[in-house]
């Protein structure tokens, strides 16, 4: 993947798609996240314990999904200043799967110079367990 370069407001087009990101949601990486975030609940770090509580497997913490979407934005525009990011957790994102994160430009405000994005994480079935929006400036 080519290294992203800083962007300016005038570079951005309505409907522009952010480069897709394949986040690492392996159990090993989720454990690293959980340690950093002090979220060591078993449903995040143990498939077995998660299944015992009725989940299909260990789940990616919602805030890690949100962090993945932050990384998606910075991967596209390293200089992006995120003013707001809002994510809705519609269904569990399962650890050790291969989700993809996507984003697209949905508003460009010429007065405030604020850009809005739709964000989503899709699972292997093509469902979107995580959707969100962000307001950024460059």
């Amino acid at each position: 993947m080519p290294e992203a370069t800083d962007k300016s407001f005038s570079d951005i087009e309505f409907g522009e798609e952010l480069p897709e990101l394949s986040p690492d949601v392996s159990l090993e990486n989720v454990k690293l996240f959980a340690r950093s975030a002090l979220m060591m609940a078993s449903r995040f770090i143990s498939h077995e314990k998660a299944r015992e509580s009725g989940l299909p497997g260990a789940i990616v913490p919602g805030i890690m999904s949100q962090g993945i979407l932050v990384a998606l934005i910075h991967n596209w525009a390293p200089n992006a200043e995120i003013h707001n990011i809002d994510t809705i957790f519609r269904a569990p994102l399962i650890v050790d799967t291969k989700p993809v994160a996507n984003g697209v430009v949905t508003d460009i405000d010429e007065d405030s110079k604020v850009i809005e994005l739709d964000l989503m994480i899709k699972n292997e079935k093509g469902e979107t367990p995580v959707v969100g929006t962000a307001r950024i400036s460059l």
Partner: protein
Amino acid sequence: MILDLHTHSIASDDGRAKVENYCQWIRRKELPLDGFVLTEHRQFDDASDYRSLEDRFGLLILKASEVETEYGHVLVYGVNDDLRAAFDFARIDNPLAMVLEQAKRCGAVAVPCHPGRPKVGLCAHWEIKGPVEGVHTVETLNGGSRDGENEQALEYAEKFGWKRIGGSDSHIVSHIGRFATRFEDALTNIDDLVDALRAGRFDAVRPE
């Protein structure tokens, strides 16, 4: 004429899309939509006026509502003062039979949406609580459905002879137009839409 009959804007608690951005998206992505209907959750947005957006983008923008009943969510087209006085749109436990009856009495049309969805779809409740008089149309293509949910809705529609609509159930800009409804007639306002829904001159489609 193709309309997305199920969309949410920032007026809904979980909506994140501005109406103008929906219009921009439809035009930029060249979606084969002639317009859309805003179906905000548990309310009717009386105040907003989208005529200037309609003119600017050449789209039909209509307003309706998504209300909640003990049989799941229901889209109501043709909301007027009489209907708003008939029941509380904000409640989450309106009786479906009452909503269907009042909609008919007030000249509106009520359509159960995402019928295959657990808890908030018609099918599961129909199995448990029994049939309800007055259902004639359901949403068989819903953009927020998971595996099997639209299929179940279609199965019910075929079994009971219900007409079918489609809608994206979009809450963010880029989800508009995932499903829609094709009408045989040209529609120019909410009265035309209600007439067409009553006459059954439409079907659910996936816009290509």
